[in-house]
C-alpha cells in the first residue's frame, strides 16, 4: 500500500509540475505561434491555435523596418558588459561582507537591497539629468553603467550568500601559505564559488537583457537594445500583433537558448546551499 501511495504521489507531483510548467510556458508558446500567423488571424476573436496560413512575412517586415542585428549587438554588449562589471565590483564586496564582517554589514546589505524597493520612475528625472550633463544619453557605456548599478545589489546579495557557504578555514589556510588578498580571492575563493558565480552571471545577463524601462527611456536609436526594438512594434491603432510576436520571438530567442543550455548550471547555482 505504501508503495502504491508513493507512486500515486509521484504521478500527482509530476502532473502538477508539468501543469505549472505548461502554464508558465503558455504565453511564450502563444507568442511563438502568433509570430507565424497573418495579422488578420493573429487578432481573430475566435483564436486559432496553430497558424492556418503559415507565414514568415512578419519576420521580413520586422527586419525591413528595424535593424535586428544592431539591437541584438547592443543587448549583448550591455547585458554582458554590465554583468562582468558588476561581478568585478561584487566579488570583492561580497568577500568583504562574508569574511570580514563588521557591526554594520547587515545594515549595509539591507540598505543595498532597499534601493531595489523604489520604483525606477521615482528616480527618472535625476538620472536623466545626470545622463544629460555627462553626455551619457543614448550611449552604450551609459546604459552599461546604469544596468550595472541597478543589478549590483542582486549580484552582491547572491555572491554573499554563496561565499557564506565556503569554509573560512580554507581561505585562512591559503593566507598561512602566504597568499595575498588578490590571490586569495582570484585563485582560491573564485574557483570554489564557480557554480554560484556562474548562476549570478546568468541571472544578471537575463535581467539586463530583459530590462525595459531604462533601456527605452535613456536611448533614442543608436544604443537601443532589443527591448526598445520590441516596443517599436506595439501600437494602439491598426494590426500589429503578429509583427510584435515576431519581434518578441527574435528578441527572446538568444536568451531562451542560453537559458536552455545553461539550465543545469542555473538550477545548481540557485539551489546552492539550500540543502544542508
Amino acid at each position: 500500500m505504501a508503495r502504491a501511495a508513493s507512486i500515486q504521489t509521484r504521478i500527482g507531483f509530476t502532473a502538477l509540475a508539468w501543469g505549472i510548467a505548461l502554464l508558465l510556458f503558455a504565453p511564450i508558446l502563444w507568442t511563438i505561434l502568433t509570430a507565424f500567423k497573418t495579422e488578420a488571424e493573429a487578432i481573430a476573436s475566435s483564436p486559432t491555435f496553430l497558424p492556418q496560413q503559415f507565414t514568415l512575412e512578419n519576420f521580413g517586415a520586422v527586419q525591413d523596418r528595424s535593424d535586428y542585428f544592431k539591437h541584438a549587438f547592443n543587448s549583448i554588449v550591455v547585458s554582458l558588459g554590465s554583468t562582468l562589471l558588476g561581478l568585478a565590483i561584487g566579488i570583492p564586496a561580497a568577500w568583504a561582507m562574508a569574511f570580514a564582517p563588521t557591526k554594520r554589514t547587515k545594515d549595509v546589505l539591507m540598505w543595498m537591497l532597499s534601493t531595489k524597493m523604489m520604483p525606477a520612475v521615482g528616480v527618472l528625472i535625476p538620472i536623466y539629468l545626470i545622463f544629460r550633463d555627462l553626455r551619457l544619453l543614448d550611449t552604450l557605456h551609459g546604459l552599461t553603467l546604469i544596468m550595472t548599478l541597478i543589478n549590483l545589489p542582486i549580484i552582491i546579495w547572491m555572491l554573499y550568500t554563496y561565499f557564506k557557504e565556503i569554509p573560512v578555514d580554507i581561505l585562512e589556510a591559503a593566507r598561512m601559505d602566504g597568499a595575498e588578498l588578490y590571490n586569495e580571492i582570484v585563485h582560491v575563493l573564485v574557483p570554489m564559488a564557480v557554480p554560484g558565480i556562474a548562476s549570478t552571471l546568468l541571472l544578471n545577463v537575463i535581467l539586463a537583457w530583459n530590462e525595459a524601462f531604462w533601456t527605452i527611456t535613456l536611448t533614442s536609436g543608436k544604443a537601443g537594445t532589443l527591448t526598445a526594438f520590441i516596443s517599436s512594434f506595439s501600437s494602439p491603432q491598426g494590426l500589429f500583433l503578429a509583427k510584435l510576436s515576431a519581434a518578441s520571438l527574435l528578441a527572446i530567442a538568444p536568451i531562451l537558448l542560453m537559458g536552455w543550455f545553461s539550465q543545469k548550471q542555473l538550477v545548481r547555482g540557485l539551489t546552492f546551499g539550500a540543502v544542508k
Partner: protein
Amino acid sequence: MKLTPILVGAFSLALAASASAQTLTIATVNNGDMIRMQGLSEAFTAETGIALNWVVLEENTLRQNVTTDIATNGGQYDVMTIGTYEAPIWAKQGWLVPLDGLSADAAYDVDDLLPAIRGGLSMDGKLYAAPFYGESSMVMYRKDLMEKAGLTMPDAPTWEFIGQAARAMTDRANDINGICLRGKAGWGENMAFLTAMSNSFGARWFDESWHAQFDQPEWKQTLDTYLSLMADAGPAGASSNGFNENLTLFQQGKCGMWIDATVAASFVTNPNDSTVADKVGFALAPDNGLGKRGNWLWAWSLAIPKSTQNAEAAEKFINWATNKDYLATVAAKEGWANVPPGTRTSLYENAEYQAAAPFAKMTLDSINAADPTNPTVKPVPYTGVQFVAIPEFAGIATNVGQLFSAALAGQMSADDALAQAQDATTRDMTRAGYIK
C-alpha cells in the same frame, strides 16, 4: 581566472560601439502612415545629405519618452511626433521652436492646412507643429444590417436614431451587436469618446471658473444614454474594449455600428482584413439638436524641441514630410487611398483622391465640424474637443475614465460614478490651483 582583460574588453567594446556620426533623430509613433514615411525618407536623405535616425515607439511609451526629454531639456530628439493635446501646452511652456520657416515658405502653402487642425497647433498666430495626419470620429455602419432592420442612416444622425438603430440591429442569437463603443479606461480611450459625446449633449468638463461639471444634468444624460445603449446593444465585456478590440469585432461582422476614429475607415474597407469591406457606410457623428456633434479632432504632428542642436535641418525635414509634394509621392508609390489624410484642403479637392477614398468627404466634414476653441454648447475656459488642453488633464481624465468604465462593467451606478468623478476632479483642480 583572468577577469581583468575580459572586463576591459567588454567596456571598451561598449565605448567603441557608441561613437558614431551625427544625424537627425526623429521620435514617432508606430502607425501605418508614420511607417510609410520612414520607408520613403531615403529620398529626403538623398536630396539633402541629412541622415535620419528613427525611434519608433508605441504611443504611450513615446509620450513618456518625449515628455521626459523635453521637460529636462535633454536634447535626445531633433523632431518629435506630438498630438493636439501636447502642442498648445508645450508651446505655452516655451519648449517648442515656432515653425516660422514653414509659414514663410510660399511652396509649403501654410494656408492650405485645414483651419481646425491648424488652429489646434498654433499659439498667438504662430504654428508650433506641422500636422502629418489628422483625424476626427464618425459613424461606421453595416449597410446590409441597417437595411434588414428597415432603417435608413441619414448623413447626420441624431443620438435618438443611433439608439433606435442599434437596438433594431442587435441580434444576440447570431452574435451581432447593434453598436460597439470604447469602454476601456483612459484619457485617450473611453474618455476621448465620452468627452466628444458629452459635447453633443451640451456637457462640459469645467465652467468658466474651472469648477467640475459632473454634477450637472448634461453629464448625467450623456452617461445614462451611453450605458443604456451599451447594455441593450453593446458587446459583452465592453469595458475592456478600445480601438483595436472594436476594430476586430467590426471587421468580423459582429457590430452593426461603430463610432470611432476616421482613420478606421481604411481598415474596415480593406478586403484583406475585413469580412464586411463592401458593406460599410459612413455618417457624421451623432448630435442632439444642440448644434454640436459628438466627434473629436486629433492630429499627429511634427514639432521641433527647443533643446535640439539641429533646428534648421529639423525644419527642412518637417517641410519635406508635410508638404504637398509628399502627398503626391505617397500617391505615386502607394496609391491615393494611402495618402495621410486630414491635413490639407487641396487633398480633398483632388478628384483622384475623392475617387480612391470613399470616406474622404465624411472625414473632411467631420474634421470641419469640430471646433477646439469652442467645443461645446456653453462657454469653456479651455481648448480641445475630446480633451482639455491643460497638463493635469491626462491624470484627471484617466481617473474619471476608470469610474465610467466601472459603471459600464456594472460595478457601480451611473450616479455613483458621476458623484465620485465630481469629487475627485474638484479635489485635483483645487490642488493644482485652478479653483481658488
